[in-house]
C-alpha cells in the first residue's frame, strides 16, 4: 500500500516532468505565458512528489517491510533507527530516488527563485532541466525501482542489513554531499544551455547561476573531504586518498568547476571569455554525469552487481544525448560569443586566471586519461590496465606545486597590467620568510628536496595571502575602525574575494598536511605477544590483551588494548578494532589513533586476532595529517563566506539587470 503510493508518486513526478517539457515547448512556440507558467508549476510539483516518494521509502525502511526488495537488501530489524533512515542512499535504487529528490529540489528552487528575473530564458531552462529529470525519474521508475517487491512472494523475516562500510558517520554524510554537488551543477548547466539556445548570450546566466555554482562546488568539495576522512577512519590503510576511479569521478568535475569559478571572474570584470566559460560549465556538467556513469555502470571499477543491470546502457544513452546536444550548441554559438579579447600584459589578473585555467585543465586531462586507462588498455591490448597512486602522484605533483605558487602570486596582480617591479617588491618578504622556514626545517632534519621545495612554495603563498588580508584590514583601520571591526567588515564587504582567500588558505594548510603524510609517513608491522613492545619513531606500544564483545545489531567487536608511550611517557591507551557483522561476515578494520597537532599515531589490527594474547599490529606515524582536516575546515568556511548571500552585491545585480536589457544574439 505504502509502496504503491510511493511508486505512483514517482510516476506522477515523471509525468509532471514530461508535461513540463511539452508545455514549455508549446508555450514558447505560441508565446502563451500561461502555458509557460503551467510548465513551471509542473516542474515545481516534482519536488513534493519526489519528497513524498522518498519519505514513503523511509517509512518502509523504518517499519521493516521486508516484502520490499530494497528494504530487505539494505536494512534489518536490529539496525539502529538513524541507519534505517540513511539506508535511503545505501543502495543503488534508493540512492537514485534520493538523487531524484535532490534534483527536483534544485530545479524547483531555481525556477521559483529566478522566475521573474529570467523570463526569456525560462522555456529553455525548463526543457533542459525537465529532460534531465525525465531521465533520472525513468531510471527510478522502470529500471531501479526502489519499491519493487521481493520475488517469490515469501516475505523474509529479516533483512541483510546495510553494508558495514557504509555505517560510518563519514559515509552517511558523504554520499548526500556528493549528490548535492552533482545535482547542483544541473542548475548552472541548465541556464547556460538556455542562454545558448535562446541566443541571449549576455552574462545574465552567469549572474543568475553564480551562487548555485558556488553551492554545488561547495558540496562537491565537502564530499571529497568527507570521503577522505571516511577512508582514513574506516578503510584501514593509513591513507585518505587512493586515486580510486570512484574518487576520481568526483574529483574530475571538481577540477573543471574550479577552473570555471576562476575564469568567470574575467567575464564579469572584462566581458571576455564568454565562450570559454560556457564551455567550462558544460564540460563540468558532462563530467559530472560521466563520473556517475563510470561509477554506476561498472565500466571502470567492475562492481559486478551493477554491471549487468540496464542502468549502464541507459546512462550511456543519456550521456551521448547530452554531450552531442551541448557540444552542438557550444560550437554553433561560437561566433556569437566572440568578444574582443585583449590582454594588456602577461602580468595581469586576466593572465593569472588563464594560467590557473591552464593548470587545472592540464591536471584534469591527466586524471581523466589515467582514470580511463583500464578501458583504453583493454581496447588496444585486450588486457585490462591499472594505474596506481604512484603514477598519479609523479605526474601531478609538479602541476599542483605550480598551482600552489600561482595561488599566492595571482591575488597580487591587477586587472589590465601589473608592473614587474611592484610584483617583485611584494614578493620579497614572503620569499624571505619561506626561505628562512626551509632553512630551519633543514636543520630539523627535513632533508628531502621535494618536501623543502613544497614547503617553500606553500609558505611563500601563505604569507602572500595573509598579507592580502593584512592590507585590506589596514586600509580600513586607517579610516578609524579597530582591528576586529576592520577585519570583519572586510569579509562582509567583499565576500567573494576574501572568501576566496580563505579557500586558498585552507588549500595551503591542507598542502602542508599532504606533504607531511606523503613524504614522511612511517609504518611498521609486527606480531606481538601480550606484554611485548614495538617502537616506531618516538613512540613505543605495549600490547596488553585482546578483548571481544558484542556491539549493536549483529556486530562482534574484537579489540586490542595497547598502551602508547612517547619518549618513555604513557600518553594514551588505544583500542584498534576488528568488527565483524555476523550476518554478512564482512570484516571491518577500525583503526585507533592518538591525534596531536603535529602527527597521528595510528594503529591497526593487521589480522583478525585468534588468541587473546597475540596480535599483529600495523602502526603508522602520519605527520601533519590533521592539517589536512583543518585545512578542509577552513576551505569549507571560505566557501561559505563566498557563497553567503550578499545584499550589496545582489543590489548591483538587480540594478544592472534593469539597466542593461538583455541583448539578443548579437553578442558584443
Amino acid at each position, binding site marked *: 500500500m505504502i509502496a504503491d503510493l510511493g511508486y505512483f508518486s514517482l510516476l506522477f513526478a515523471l509525468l509532471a516532468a514530461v508535461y513540463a517539457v511539452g508545455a514549455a515547448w508549446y508555450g514558447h512556440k505560441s508565446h502563451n505565458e500561461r502555458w509557460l507558467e503551467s510548465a513551471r508549476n509542473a516542474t515545481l510539483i516534482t519536488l513534493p512528489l519526489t519528497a513524498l516518494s522518498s519519505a514513503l521509502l523511509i517509512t518502509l525502511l523504518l517499519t521493516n517491510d521486508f516484502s520490499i526488495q530494497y528494504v530487505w537488501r539494505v536494512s534489518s530489524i536490529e539496525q539502529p533507527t538513524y541507519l534505517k533512515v540513511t539506508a535511503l542512499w545505501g543502495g543503488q535504487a534508493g540512492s537514485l530516488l534520493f538523487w531524484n529528490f535532490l534534483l527536483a529540489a534544485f530545479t524547483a528552487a531555481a525556477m521559483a527563485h529566478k522566475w521573474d528575473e529570467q523570463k526569456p530564458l525560462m522555456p529553455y531552462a525548463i526543457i533542459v532541466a525537465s529532460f534531465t529529470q525525465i531521465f533520472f525519474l525513468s531510471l527510478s521508475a522502470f529500471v531501479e525501482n526502489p519499491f519493487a517487491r521481493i520475488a517469490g512472494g515469501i516475505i523474509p523475516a529479516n533483512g541483510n542489513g546495510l553494508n558495514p562500510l557504509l555505517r560510518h558517520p563519514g559515509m552517511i554524510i558523504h554520499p548526500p554531499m556528493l549528490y548535492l554537488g552533482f545535482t547542483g551543477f544541473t542548475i548552472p548547466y541548465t541556464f547556460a544551455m538556455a542562454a545558448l539556445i535562446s541566443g541571449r548570450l549576455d552574462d545574465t546566466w552567469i549572474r543568475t547561476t553564480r551562487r548555485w555554482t558556488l553551492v554545488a562546488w561547495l558540496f562537491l568539495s565537502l564530499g571529497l573531504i568527507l570521503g577522505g576522512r571516511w577512508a582514513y577512519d574506516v578503510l584501514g590503510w593509513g591513507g585518505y586518498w587512493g586515486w580510486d576511479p570512484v574518487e576520481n569521478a568526483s574529483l574530475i568535475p571538481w577540477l573543471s568547476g574550479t577552473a570555471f569559478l576562476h575564469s568567470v571572474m574575467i567575464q564579469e570584470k572584462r566581458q571576455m571569455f564568454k565562450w570559454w566559460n560556457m*564551455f567550462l560549465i558544460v564540460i563540468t556538467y558532462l563530467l559530472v554525469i*560521466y563520473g556517475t*556513469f*563510470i561509477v554506476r*555502470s*561498472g*565500466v*571502470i571499477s*567492475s562492481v*559486478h552487481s551493477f*554491471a*549487468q543491470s540496464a542502468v*549502464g*546502457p541507459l546512462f*550511456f544513452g543519456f*550521456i*551521448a544525448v547530452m*554531450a*552531442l546536444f551541448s*557540444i552542438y550548441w*557550444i*560550437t554553433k554559438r*561560437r561566433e556569437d560569443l566572440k568578444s574582443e579579447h585583449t590582454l594588456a600584459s602577461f602580468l595581469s589578473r586576466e593572465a593569472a586566471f588563464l594560467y590557473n585555467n591552464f593548470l587545472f585543465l592540464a591536471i584534469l586531462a591527466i586524471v581523466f586519461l589515467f582514470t*580511463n586507462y583500464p*578501458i*583504453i588498455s*583493454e*581496447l588496444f591490448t585486450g*588486457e*585490462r590496465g591499472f594505474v596506481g597512486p604512484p603514477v598519479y602522484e609523479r605526474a601531478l605533483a609538479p602541476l599542483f606545486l605550480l598551482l600552489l605558487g600561482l595561488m599566492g602570486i595571482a591575488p597580487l596582480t591587477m586587472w589590465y597590467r601589473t608592473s614587474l617591479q611592484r610584483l617583485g617588491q611584494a614578493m620579497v618578504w614572503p620569499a624571505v620568510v619561506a626561505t628562512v622556514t626551509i632553512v630551519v626545517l633543514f636543520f630539523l632534519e627535513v632533508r628531502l628536496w621535494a618536501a623543502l621545495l613544497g614547503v617553500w612554495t606553500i609558505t611563500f603563498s601563505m604569507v602572500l595571502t595573509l598579507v592580502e588580508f593584512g592590507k585590506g584590514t589596514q586600509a580600513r583601520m586607517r579610516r578609524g575602525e579597530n582591528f576586529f571591526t576592520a577585519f570583519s567588515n572586510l569579509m562582509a564587504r567583499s565576500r567573494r574575494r576574501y572568501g576566496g582567500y580563505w579557500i586558498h588558505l585552507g588549500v595551503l594548510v591542507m598542502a602542508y598536511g599532504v606533504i607531511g603524510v606523503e613524504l614522511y609517513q612511517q609504518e611498521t608491522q609486527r606480531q606481538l605477544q601480550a606484554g611485548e613492545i614495538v617502537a616506531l619513531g618516538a613512540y613505543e606500544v605495549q600490547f596488553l590483551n585482546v578483548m571481544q564483545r558484542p556491539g549493536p545489531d549483529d556486530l562482534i567487536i574484537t579489540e586490542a588494548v595497547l598502551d602508547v608511550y612517547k619518549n618513555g611517557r604513557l600518553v594514551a591507551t588505544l583500542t584498534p578494532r576488528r568488527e565483524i557483522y555476523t550476518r554478512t561476515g564482512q570484516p571491518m578494520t577500525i583503526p585507533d589513533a592518538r591525534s596531536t597537532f603535529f602527527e597521528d599515531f595510528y594503529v591497526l589490527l593487521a589480522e583478525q586476532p585468534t588468541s587473546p594474547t597475540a596480535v599483529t599490529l600495523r602502526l603508522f606515524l602520519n605527520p601533519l595529517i590533521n592539517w589536512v582536516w583543518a585545512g578542509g575546515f577552513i576551505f569549507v568556511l571560505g566557501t561559505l563566506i563566498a557563497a553567503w548571500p550578499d545584499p550589496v552585491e545582489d543590489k548591483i545585480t538587480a540594478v544592472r539587470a534593469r539597466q542593461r536589457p538583455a541583448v539578443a544574439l548579437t553578442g558584443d
Partner: protein
Amino acid sequence: MMAEISAKKKLHIPSIAIWVVVLAVLGLAAFGLVRVNTARPEPGQRAPDFTMQFYEGYTWNGQSSASLADMRGNIVVLNFWASWCAPCRVEADLLEQSWRKYADQGVVFVGIAYSDVEPKALAYLREFNITYPNAPDLRTRIAEMYDITGVPETFFIDRNGVIYEFHFGPIDAARLTTVIERMLAEG
C-alpha cells in the same frame, strides 16, 4: 578567392578538436560498456581458445604446454579453481575420480588455477593427488576470456570446441556424471 577563405574559416580547429575528443570519449565509454556487459561465453558458443603452460609434473599428450585447440576431438571439462577457495576443496576429489574414470573415453579434465600462487597451488594438487593437467592462469587472461565471477566454475566443452554446459560453484557427482554421459552419448 574570398569564398574559399571563408569556407576555410568555417573549419574551426578548436571546435573540431572538441568534437573529436567528445566522440572519442563516447566511443571509449561505449566500448567499456560492451565489454562489461559481455557475459561469459554461453553454451552453444565456441569456447575461447587459449594456451597454457602446465604446472611442473603435469602434461597432456606428453607435452608440458597445450592449447585448448590442441584438445579438439576430446570432451574438455574446464575447471577454474584456486587453493584459497574453500568450495573448490569440496569438488577436488570428485574431479580427480571422474578424470580417472573417463580418461580413456576421450574426456580431458583441465584445471586452471585462478589468481593463485605456485607453492600453494602445487600443495593443493598434491593434497588431492590430482593427476589431470593443471595450469596457472598466466596474466589472468583465461579468467577474463571466460569472464568468471569467482571460483569454482566449470565449463563443459564438446569435441568440436563448443561450450556444452556451464556449472557455477562446486559441482556434485550426479551433475558431473549426467553431463559427461550425455555428451558421450551425443558423440
